[in-house]
């Protein structure tokens, strides 16, 4: 079980798991086998899923798709918005979470666990990793995004 950094605002608590890395767009990345670069699992952060609302549909690039970091990776439709999020790392999609087809709400229920999106065989892990945020840095970014949300009329 990962540990979390948490920020509570009003009735909402946003968690950042401390055992993985993050993109500034609100995706998390973790090694499928800790300590063994190669395959990474990718998902949506808790803050991103709460801000976006209940997920209606998710589509992720199919297995076999080759991606560069920043390429279109997943599209989500929620009760609030349509999201298009970029790949946080480059490589080849090797697995997509089958649960997303019938129970996309798993992204909301368990964003850091069963709500993962896909597994990618990385092409340039060391270079991509250098661009990702550690949990503390993402937590700071998230806090500033939360404050921006609070300032909206």
């Amino acid at each position: 079980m990962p540990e979390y950094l948490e920020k509570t605002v009003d009735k909402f608590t946003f968690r950042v798991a401390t055992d993985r890395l993050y993109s500034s767009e609100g995706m998390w990345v973790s090694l499928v086998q800790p300590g063994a670069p190669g395959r990474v699992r990718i998902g949506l952060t808790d803050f991103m899923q709460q801000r976006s609302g209940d997920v209606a549909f998710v589509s992720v690039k199919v297995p076999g798709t080759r991606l560069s970091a920043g390429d279109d990776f997943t599209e989500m439709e929620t009760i609030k918005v349509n999201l298009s999020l970029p790949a946080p790392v480059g490589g080849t999609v090797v697995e997509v979470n089958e649960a997303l087809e019938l129970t996309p709400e798993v992204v909301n229920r368990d964003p850091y666990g069963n709500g993962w999106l896909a597994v990618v065989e990385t092409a340039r892990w060391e270079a991509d990793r250098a661009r990702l945020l550690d949990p503390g840095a993402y937590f700071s970014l998230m806090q500033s995004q939360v404050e921006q949300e609070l300032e909206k009329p």
Partner: protein
Amino acid sequence: MSDDRREVVVVPCSGIGKPYGTVSREAAYELCDKLRPRDTRLVALAKLVLGDQEARQRVRASPAITIDGCKLMCASKLVQHSGGTVAREIAVLDVYRRNKGLKPEGLAELNEQGQKLARVLAEELAEAVDEIGRGGTPPGGSHA
């Protein structure tokens, strides 16, 4: 409705300002005013929130269908909190997932797809009303 059938109370969410909340209310009107007017009675969620005695009595006396616009499921929770029995609870989002082309948009007035989604939902709930009237438990129920 024949006299031996039970009246069903219908409680839509009050998600004012959100398309899915509007769908829940439009579906409730379609169900209670057009599809099953003799079998159903609409109860406003706001009255349950305010503790209105007549509304509370109604949900205690009859099985309830709740229609919620989001996963907070306020209508379902309020019925249970008021001492009622939820015979069928449904989330608009789940119906939309089964009808992907019917994306609801608009607040005061739904777009055409949203209106169709409300009708699809109402027809689904009409079947649930019939099932409850026959004494059965429809899919998705029940919570006391």
